[in-house]
């Protein structure tokens, strides 16, 4: 039991250290979501009271697109110097690697959300009419849904031609129920309505897809 968690921790720390030194993923994600916020502000009056109705969708679209930027870089650095091939022939369990990558992406996207949310609140003059702690739950479950599928599909699209285009093509259709739940729950909470159904749906989605991704990851990693 200690060996797999040790591998997960080592890989995760390595990724975090690399990111801390280069800050490639976080910088590109931040700049990208900032661009989305600015572009969206042209399409409607961002300070109107009605903007609360669309803020949920807007926030998650920005995070979704930004997350794809980070997810695409997840495995790319393991291709250089054949690191991934070395991992495949090593006896280390594939799921340890998958968990490390997923946790790493989860941390990156969470940092992005923590930095961007104050900006959203300021730009769109948002204030929640419902309980804020529920927004935290939605953020955690929603981010996990995005990164667990995203990390899996990034490993999959690594094997294809034009892999950067492939990831969103695979990720977005499968994520539609999760995206719908994130957007609807955020909008409901901001407007002071109940969001219990959506949060439960999101948690179930997380549970099912995390299990299946863990079951199938070894197959995908070793496919040839």
């Amino acid at each position, binding site marked *: 039991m200690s060996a797999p968690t040790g591998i997960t921790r080592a890989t995760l720390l390595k990724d975090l250290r690399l990111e801390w030194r280069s800050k490639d993923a976080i910088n590109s994600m931040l700049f990208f979501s900032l661009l989305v916020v600015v572009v969206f502000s042209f399409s409607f009056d961002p300070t109107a009271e009605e903007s609360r109705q669309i803020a949920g969708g807007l926030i998650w679209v920005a995070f979704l697109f930004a997350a794809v930027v980070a997810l695409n870089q997840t495995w790319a650095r393991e291709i250089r110097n054949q690191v991934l091939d070395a991992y495949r022939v090593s006896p280390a369990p594939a799921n340890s690697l998958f968990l490390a990558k997923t946790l790493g992406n989860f941390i990156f996207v969470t940092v992005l959300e923590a930095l961007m949310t104050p900006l959203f609140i300021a730009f769109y003059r948002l204030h929640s009419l419902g309980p804020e702690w529920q927004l935290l739950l939605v953020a955690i479950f929603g981010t996990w849904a995005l990164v667990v599928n995203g990390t899996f599909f990034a490993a999959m699209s690594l*094997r*294809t031609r*034009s892999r950067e285009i492939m990831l969103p093509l695979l990720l977005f259709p*499968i994520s*539609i129920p999760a995206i719908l739940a994130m957007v609807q729950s955020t909008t409901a909470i901001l407007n002071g309505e109940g969001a219990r159904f959506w949060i439960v749906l999101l948690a179930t989605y997380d549970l099912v897809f995390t299990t299946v991704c863990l079951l*199938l990851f070894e197959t995908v990693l070793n496919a*040839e």
Partner: protein
Amino acid sequence: MKKVFPILVVLTGILLSYALYQALVVAPTEQTMGNVQRIFYYHVPSAWTAFILFFVNFGASIAYLIKRRPTADIIALVSAEVGVVFCTVVLVTGPIWARPVWGIWWTWDMRLTSTLVLWLIYVSYLFLRRFSSSGETPLLAAALAVLGALCVPFVYFSIWFFRTQHPQPVMGGGGSIDPRMMHALLINWLAFSCFAFLVCWSRYRLEKLQREVDHAHAMKSLLEPHGSAR
């Protein structure tokens, strides 16, 4: 097996023409919608056939993940391709009917939205098959098919809840259906299923031949002495 195929072609042809006769002549004209309602005999059977094919795709993908037989992979590929075609028929015939009856081409109703999302999932499956290199395609596609199929209940459940929050357009009335209409519908469904099976079968043979040809080419280039290719 080679003799069965032409027989099946003839039988399907007869069945399709009989179903066409049933749908256009025998089935009574609907009172309020008129003749445009007859598109129902193509729309609904196509939807059922597409759902069955997607289910076959799921089963074949699971079988491939367990047994790793190329046959299962070909069945998965073929059922997804033909399923997407039938699903496209559903999405095209729907608006043609909706425009005169509802007055709009499209509405984000539960069934329409979830069918569209289903179509998107299987189109992305076909994209993956097209973009990945041939050796890895079967495994990657099978993994995606399993995830896609697991996504379907979530799609239905979430969109059902999403859309019942809002007023729904009146779907083509509940209540009883004329037995002749039901008959025409079922005959059309049978004919469409036979047709889909036929297309799947010929596509299956084509794909198998294609793989044999590819394999033969690969072997040939391996066995050829160096330099002679130039």
